[in-house]
């Protein structure tokens, strides 16, 4: 099989698809891309169905040599992109010829770039998914010398993402929260404190959870462990909230303040350590309506 040969793997590059769904009752984390917005556009540009396996590249620093004629798209973090040293645009589909060197430099803004290839990367699924989940030992990060298998493909013309959909990862995000869970059991001033202050993203954040640093929010008592989902905002006893991301555990017992809007989870994942974060409430109905629109467009 031919594909893209890895010359430089970057600090952490992971194959991801729609996630390992349907196994949470056995404690299996779903994984999947951290930034659905960028990942979905990368696949969409290549007419790939939703959840086609692509590469999530943390910070950049990747070099690949094509061993096949194909088309690729890179969306997400603003990495300098070149083919045989010719600069190339992000958020666009590009022809990549056999022998050409595709280079992604280190990100100037944003944290995760998504490299999709026409037809998707080919890998053997485990429990229905090729998503790499390091903590659970499912797969591993890309290494030098690896081959990312894919098939030859042709398009007749280029395409790019319309500019209104291009995010500005340098801005200070106002992230939307569906309040709920144990929110009613928090003291009113503690809940207000969460929304009133500017938080900082902790450098200890990872694919499992984004940790916030700020003035502690006093949580109510612990609950019986129950199933827990992506975007859940846990408040442990130290009062520093943790927002669950793609590699989240399946059950948790910390009190919950609410859930991050699903379409704002990708924006959070693009923030560097110590980036300022603010939160604002959103209704569940508004969040669902917007999410349905997103799915209708990308999940054909």
């Amino acid at each position: 099989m031919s594909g893209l040969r890895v010359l430089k793997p970057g600090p952490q590059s992971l194959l991801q698809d729609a996630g390992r769904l349907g196994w949470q009752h056995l404690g299996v984390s779903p994984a999947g891309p951290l930034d659905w917005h960028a990942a979905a556009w990368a696949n969409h540009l290549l007419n790939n169905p939703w959840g086609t396996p692509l590469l999530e590249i943390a910070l950049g620093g990747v070099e690949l040599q094509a061993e096949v004629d194909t088309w690729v798209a890179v969306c997400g973090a603003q990495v300098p992109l070149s083919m045989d040293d010719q600069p190339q645009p992000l958020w666009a589909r590009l022809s990549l010829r056999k022998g050409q060197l595709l280079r992604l430099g280190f990100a100037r803004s944003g944290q995760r770039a998504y490299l999709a290839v026409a037809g998707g990367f080919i890998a053997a699924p485990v429990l229905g998914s090729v998503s790499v989940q390091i903590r659970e030992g499912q797969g591993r990060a890309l290494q030098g010398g690896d081959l990312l298998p894919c098939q030859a493909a042709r398009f007749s013309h280029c395409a790019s993402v319309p500019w209104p959909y291009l995010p500005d990862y340098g801005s200070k995000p106002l992230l939307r929260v569906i309040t709920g869970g144990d929110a009613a059991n928090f003291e009113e001033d503690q809940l207000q404190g969460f929304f009133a202050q500017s938080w900082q993203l902790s450098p200890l954040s990872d694919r499992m959870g984004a940790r916030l640093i700020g003035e502690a929010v006093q949580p109510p008592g612990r609950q019986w462990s129950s199933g827990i989902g992506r975007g859940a905002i846990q408040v442990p006893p130290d009062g520093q909230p943790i927002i669950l991301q793609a590699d989240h555990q399946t059950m948790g017992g910390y009190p919950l303040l609410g859930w991050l809007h699903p379409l704002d989870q990708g924006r959070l994942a693009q923030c560097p350590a110590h980036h300022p974060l603010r939160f604002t409430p959103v209704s569940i109905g508004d969040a669902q309506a917007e999410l349905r629109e997103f799915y209708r467009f990308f999940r054909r």
Partner: protein
Amino acid sequence: MIRFEPAGAEALLLVLAEQPDAQLPQRIALLAQRIRAELGDLLIDLVPGWTSVLLHYDLMCTDHLQLAERLKPLLERWLAEPFVAQAGRLHEIPIWYGGEDLAEVARLCQLSGAQVIELHAATEYRVGAIGFAPGFAYLGELDARLALPRRATPRIAVPAGSLAIAERQTAIYPHSSPGGWHLLGRCPWLLFDVAQLPPCPLALGDRVRFRRIDERDFIREGGQS
């Protein structure tokens, strides 16, 4: 009183009781089975908890309000049923009781090491929940004389197959992972294996007994010391 609580934009939490009890895991297992059979097409994941079931639904098929309406008749039937103890599958799991914390647990519980092992192995446990890590089954209920809070500082890595206790629960860590429970022994079996279907032999409501083995048996049955 059953409560429906939206859990974000794509999940619904069913809170079935305020406190867990001995019968609840089996009753929740039965309910989970029925929900899967009748409403499985609308769901992506279904996660039973100690007192709850979390339903991750497909927003393109339903929402929390519609799903709650669909669940009501099913829950009414479930509530009206008298409890029939399901025998549940019985798993006999070999354990080499040579854990790092055995002496410490004995000291804290004011028992001898042999008494700790005896009390632990005498109980028949039930799988009350599965979570934390793939195949990590919370087993209850541990003898009250062995109940201890979690360790003040969790270990960075607990060996795969470690049998551990905390509060009124016991469990086996299927893979090496960080862990704050007290280690009593080791199981030689692989308790989560993606090559098997299902990958985890234990299911909610199943029964578990522990069979004492020594280090030689542990190695013979595939354990890595």
